[in-house]
C-alpha cells in the first residue's frame, strides 16, 4: 500500500525494472532512516544522506535487475540507460555549444603574423573573427579599429581602410575589454596584366598563372591577397598559384586581387600532326612548328571560323612570318602580338567553310638559328 504519490526515486527504481517488493523495501528503509536522521541531525543532513544513499544503491539495484530480470526488464533498463546517456550527451553538447562572452579577436587571414594585406584602391573593410573562451565563433559586430603607428593610412572606427600608396601601419582592434594589434600592409594594385589565353597541350605540367599585378608606382606588387577560380575543373584545376590542364577543351579563369579582376581563357589543345581532315569534335588542336633559318612550310587549315595562335617555345624569339591564303583573317596583314608581356600571337580567321585554305610560316635569313613553337587552332564553328 502506498500513501502518497510515487517519489522520483521510486519512479527511477521502477524504470530500471526493480521488483516492486524490492523497491518498497529499499524505499521504506530509506524513509525510515531519513525520519530518524531528520530528528537526530536535522533535515538538511538527512536529505544529503538520502541522496548519497540513493546514488550508492543504484549500481547494486541495476546489477540485480540486469542479472535477475526478464528480457523485457533488461530491454527497459537498456532503454532507460540509453535515454539517460542521450540526455547526458545532449547536456554536454549544449554546454559546449553555448556561446560565451568574447574572449579573443583574430584577424581574418591565414597568418596574422604576416599582417593583413590590402590591395584594393577603394576603401576595404578589415574583418576580425571573434571567439569566446571555448573557441566558438561569435558575430564580429561591435569591433572598433584605431590607427596606432606606421604609415598614415586612413581607417574608420568600423575598420574601413583606404590605401592610396604602399606602407605598413599598426592598428588596434578592440571589442569591450579585449583588444589585439594588427599589421596592415597597404599594397594597392592599380592594374592586373594578364594573358588573354592560357594555352596548354594535353598532358602539359602545371604552369604559374600568367599575370602580373601592377602597383600605383608602376612596379609589380608581390604581396597579394585575392582569389582565383577556374570555371570548369574538368578542363583545368588550380594548384596554389599554378594551373594544371586536365582534359582537352576550354574554360575560363577569374582572378580577383583587391578591387581589380582579370579573366583568362584556358584552352587545352590536342597535339596533332596535321590540320587536314580534322573531325568535327576536334575543336582544340595544335601542331609543332620547327623552322631553321630560311625554312618555310605551308599547312592546310580547316574551313569555318577559328582562332589561330602561334606560341613560341622560347619567349625571346619573334614568331615566324605567318600568312594565310584563301580566307580572311583579322588583322588582315597576318598574326599580331595580342598580349605583349606574355608573348602570345594570335589571329581571328573566317574561312567561310572553304577548302584549300593554307597557312604559310617562314623563317627569314636573320634571327635565331631555329624557331620552335606551336601553331594552335581553336575552332569556333
Amino acid at each position, binding site marked *: 500500500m502506498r500513501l*502518497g504519490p510515487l517519489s522520483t526515486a521510486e519512479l527511477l527504481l521502477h524504470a530500471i525494472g526493480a521488483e516492486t517488493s524490492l523497491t518498497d523495501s529499499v524505499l521504506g528503509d530509506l524513509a525510515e532512516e531519513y525520519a530518524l536522521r531528520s530528528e537526530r541531525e536535522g533535515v538538511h543532513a538527512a536529505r544529503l544522506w538520502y541522496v548519497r544513499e540513493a546514488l550508492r544503491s543504484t549500481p547494486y539495484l541495476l546489477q540485480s535487475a540486469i542479472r535477475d530480470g526478464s528480457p523485457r526488464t533488461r530491454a527497459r533498463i537498456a532503454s532507460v540507460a540509453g535515454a539517460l546517456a542521450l540526455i547526458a550527451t545532449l547536456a554536454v553538447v549544449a554546454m559546449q555549444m553555448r556561446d560565451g562572452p568574447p574572449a579573443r579577436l583574430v584577424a581574418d587571414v591565414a597568418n596574422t603574423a604576416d599582417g593583413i594585406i590590402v590591395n584594393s584602391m577603394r576603401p576595404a573593410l578589415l574583418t576580425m573573427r571573434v571567439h569566446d573562451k571555448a573557441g566558438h565563433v561569435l558575430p564580429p559586430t561591435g569591433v572598433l579599429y584605431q590607427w596606432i603607428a606606421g604609415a598614415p593610412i586612413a581607417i574608420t572606427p568600423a575598420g574601413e581602410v583606404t590605401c592610396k600608396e604602399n606602407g605598413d601601419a599598426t592598428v588596434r582592434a578592440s571589442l569591450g575589454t579585449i583588444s589585439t594589434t594588427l599589421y596592415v600592409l597597404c599594397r594597392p594594385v592599380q592594374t592586373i596584366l594578364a594573358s588573354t589565353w592560357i594555352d596548354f597541350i594535353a598532358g602539359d605540367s602545371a604552369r604559374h598563372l600568367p599575370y602580373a599585378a601592377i602597383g600605383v608606382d608602376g612596379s609589380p606588387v608581390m604581396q597579394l591577397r585575392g582569389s582565383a577560380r577556374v570555371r570548369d575543373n574538368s578542363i583545368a584545376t588550380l594548384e596554389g598559384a599554378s594551373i594544371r590542364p586536365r582534359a582537352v577543351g576550354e574554360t575560363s579563369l577569374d582572378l580577383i586581387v583587391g578591387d581589380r579582376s582579370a579573366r583568362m581563357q584556358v584552352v587545352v589543345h590536342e597535339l596533332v600532326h596535321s590540320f587536314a581532315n580534322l573531325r568535327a569534335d576536334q575543336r582544340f588542336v595544335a601542331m609543332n612548328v620547327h623552322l631553321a633559318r630560311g625554312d618555310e612550310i605551308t599547312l592546310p587549315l580547316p574551313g569555318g571560323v577559328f582562332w589561330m595562335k602561334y606560341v613560341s617555345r622560347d619567349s625571346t624569339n619573334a614568331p615566324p612570318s605567318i600568312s594565310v591564303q584563301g580566307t580572311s583573317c583579322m588583322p588582315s596583314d597576318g598574326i599580331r602580338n595580342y598580349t605583349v608581356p606574355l608573348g602570345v600571337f594570335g589571329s581571328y580567321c573566317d574561312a567561310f567553310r572553304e577548302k584549300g585554305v593554307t597557312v604559310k610560316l617562314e623563317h627569314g635569313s636573320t634571327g635565331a638559328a631555329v624557331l620552335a613553337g606551336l601553331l594552335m587552332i581553336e575552332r569556333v564553328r
Partner: protein
Amino acid sequence: MSPSSLGTLELAALLAVARLGDDAYGLAVRRDLTERTGRDHSVGAVYTTLQRLEDKGFLKSHASEPLPVRGGRSRRHFALTGTGARALRDAQRQSAALWAGVGSLRPKLS
C-alpha cells in the same frame, strides 16, 4: 549448497539475520553489519545481498503491516531457512577447521 559458495557479505548478512531473529529486516541488518564490520554498506548492497540469499534458499521473507514511518510501506522481515542454518553451521565448521592449529599470529624472529 556448499558454504564455500557464500561470499563474505552474504555470510555476514546471514549471521546478522540469525542474530536479529524476528527483528531482521533490511535497516536492522544494515545497522548490525555496520556495527560489526565497521563498514557502511549501502541500502542497495544490503538488499541485493538479502535478495540473493533468498534466491539461494538460505532465507525466506515476509512483509509486515504498512508503517507510517516508512511512508506507508511494509518492512520485509527475513528469517533463516533450514538450508540457511545448515550453511551457517558448515561455514562455522569450515572456519574452525581452517583456524585449528594456528597459534599466535606474531611473526617469528629469526
